[in-house]
């Protein structure tokens, strides 16, 4: 590749081979974007973590390119969002074309007052490299390259893995194993588990090309374009003047033939014009699948990312959902390891992220059905929608070139405290929703989310909380920080100002309104008035306390 040289990370002989082995709280299998994110989150929470990867470099070729607003917010919390944003290409607008005309355009972030854009595009290898660099800054994380897991031995009170290195094999054990070893997940196979679903009968040529062009930084999707009749095509701008092109080929296409430069070039020239000057950086032919494991938690093995669930790429719901898995999992693991929560809390990782995975699978399956219709009736309706969409707005709403990744609203989570009868709210910040960002003025800068630090947080809007209550919440075993939005300063609380009134608007906040956020920034309870006992009960519930009581009663 012209624009990127894969780093070669050094292999070091593990001390374990000389007989000095230690027990790890957590081992992460796989140093992809999801595994690395897990390691960073754990290390920042003070948990020692060992990451094992069979390779010695980052992703070869680009693969995932679209990183969602939510992913950037999570990585902001982990201290590396800004690096991605600096390097990546921001975009909010998508355009959909049919034949030779534009059907419609959409803006994924139509309102101002958010720190992060709807998406940035950045090649997966850059993201992984930045995450590797972040891991290296954290003494609590150890990353071992060319350490391949070849066996797993789950036991009642721990889990052991067998690891092969260039210097021989060793065995190491941990309390928990986070399995982030990708779509083919060797560990899933070692444990005799399956990921079930469907393969779509279509093939897609995906190529990254290097080209200087003044195409805007937008997502362009074509149905049946003049340069690629009867099929679809997609164009995305990435960093370093690299562009992602994606051509639908049909099921009959021969992957080996299509990958040859002499077959790729005519397609690209037809799309970009004879005069366009470009070089192919990387190309591959894919089929897409939607699969998921029946459960993501298997004892002490916790499956995340593509190992747990796989979606077709229309909608950027793969890597982004994997990073949300980790965001959901790690704080729960921390509470468990500190013996502040029952094991049942981990089952809510399973239920919450299976809910999210099913939402992603449904969305991408629907998009794939539209792009790759199965059968004549499906194709006829698709073509009818496209024909009508040229002239009628109702049909544009039916056109589906991918519904882009947004975080799941965990409305039915057992960790939520339902709104009380006196606590009527409007707007989107229902229990289970991800906290929306808003511009503020505060000690940690101009954004609300920058003031959240990975623990339970109470947002108190223009409320006069008793100082003793704030101190109690801060001193509880499961600590809860208090952020005051306006009002007189209280000791132990962080005071911020709702700069443009957007916080109040997005949270439908009135004086005395309180929101309780989980460590992963999901809303778990809200009230119109502060009541210490209710806040503490909601924290107990959100950390599995209620579930544990129920479990004890059931037993």
């Amino acid at each position: 590749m012209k624009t990127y040289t894969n780093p070669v990370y050094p292999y070091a002989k593990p001390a374990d081979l000389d007989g000095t082995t230690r027990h790890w709280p957590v081992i992460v299998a796989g140093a992809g974007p999801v595994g690395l994110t897990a390691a960073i989150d754990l290390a920042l929470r003070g948990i020692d973590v060992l990451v094992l990867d069979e390779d010695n470099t980052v992703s070869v070729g680009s693969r995932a390119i679209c990183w969602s607003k939510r992913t950037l917010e999570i990585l902001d919390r982990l201290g590396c969002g800004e690096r991605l944003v600096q390097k990546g290409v921001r975009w909010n607008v998508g355009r959909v074309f049919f034949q030779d005309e534009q059907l419609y355009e959409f803006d994924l972030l139509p309102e101002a007052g958010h720190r992060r854009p709807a998406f940035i595009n950045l090649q997966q290898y850059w993201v992984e490299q930045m995450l590797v660099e972040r891991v290296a800054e954290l003494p609590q994380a150890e990353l071992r390259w060319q350490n391949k897991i070849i066996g797993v031995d789950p036991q009642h009170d721990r889990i052991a893995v067998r690891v092969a290195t260039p210097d021989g094999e060793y065995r190491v054990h941990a309390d928990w194993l986070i399995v982030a070893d990708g779509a083919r997940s060797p560990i899933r196979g070692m444990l005799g588990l399956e990921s079930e679903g469907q393969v779509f009968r279509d093939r897609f040529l995906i190529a990254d090309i290097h080209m200087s062009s003044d195409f805007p930084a937008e997502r362009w999707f074509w149905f049946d374009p003049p340069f690629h009749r009867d099929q679809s095509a997609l164009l995305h701008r990435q960093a370093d003047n690299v562009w992602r092109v994606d051509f639908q080929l049909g099921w009959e296409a021969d992957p080996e033939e299509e990958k040859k430069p002499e077959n790729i070039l005519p397609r690209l020239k037809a799309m970009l014009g004879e005069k366009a000057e470009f070089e192919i950086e990387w190309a591959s032919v894919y089929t897409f699948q939607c699969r998921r494991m029946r459960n993501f938690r298997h004892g002490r093995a916790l499956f995340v990312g593509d190992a747990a669930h796989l979606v077709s790429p229309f909608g950027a719901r793969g890597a982004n959902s994997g990073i949300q898995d980790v965001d959901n999992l790690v704080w729960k693991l921390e509470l468990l390891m500190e013996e502040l929560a029952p094991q049942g809390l981990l089952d809510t990782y399973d239920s919450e992220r299976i809910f999210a995975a099913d939402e992603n699978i449904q969305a991408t399956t629907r998009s794939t059905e539209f792009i790759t219709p199965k059968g004549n009736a499906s194709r006829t309706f698709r073509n009818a929608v496209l024909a009508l969409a040229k002239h009628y707005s109702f049909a544009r709403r039916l056109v589906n070139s991918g519904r882009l990744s947004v975080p799941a609203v965990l409305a039915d989570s057992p960790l939520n405290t339902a709104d009380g009868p006196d606590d009527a709210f409007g707007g989107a910040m229902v229990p289970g929703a991800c906290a929306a960002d808003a511009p503020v003025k505060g000690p940690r800068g101009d954004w609300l989310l920058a003031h959240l630090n990975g623990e339970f947080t109470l947002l108190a809007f223009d409320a006069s909380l008793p100082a003793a209550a704030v101190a109690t919440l801060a001193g509880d075993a499961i600590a809860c920080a208090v952020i005051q939005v306006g009002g007189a300063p209280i000791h132990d609380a962080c005071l911020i100002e709702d700069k443009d009134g957007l916080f109040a608007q997005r949270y439908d906040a009135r004086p005395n309104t309180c929101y309780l956020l989980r460590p992963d920034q999901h809303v778990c309870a809200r009230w119109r008035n502060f009541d210490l006992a209710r806040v503490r009960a909601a924290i107990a519930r959100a950390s599995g306390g209620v579930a544990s009581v129920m479990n004890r009663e059931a037993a």
Partner: protein
Amino acid sequence: MTLNTDPNIAAPDDFYESLIDLHRELSDEQSALVNAKLILLLANHVGDAEVLREAMAVAVQGVARAVSPPAPGKSQ
């Protein structure tokens, strides 16, 4: 709202004739496309999800599936 299956077209023979005329000299493929567009236009006009679901259920009644669909909840 529920699906109205009582007579609701003022001049049924006129309607039927115009429906058949619509397909005159169209290939099977073209006819299928026109029918699909017609369904989409009418469905949008109706709008009500319950009525549309009911109409779909009535339409498929008595039509045996060539391939049995997967059991609900089970992935294929």
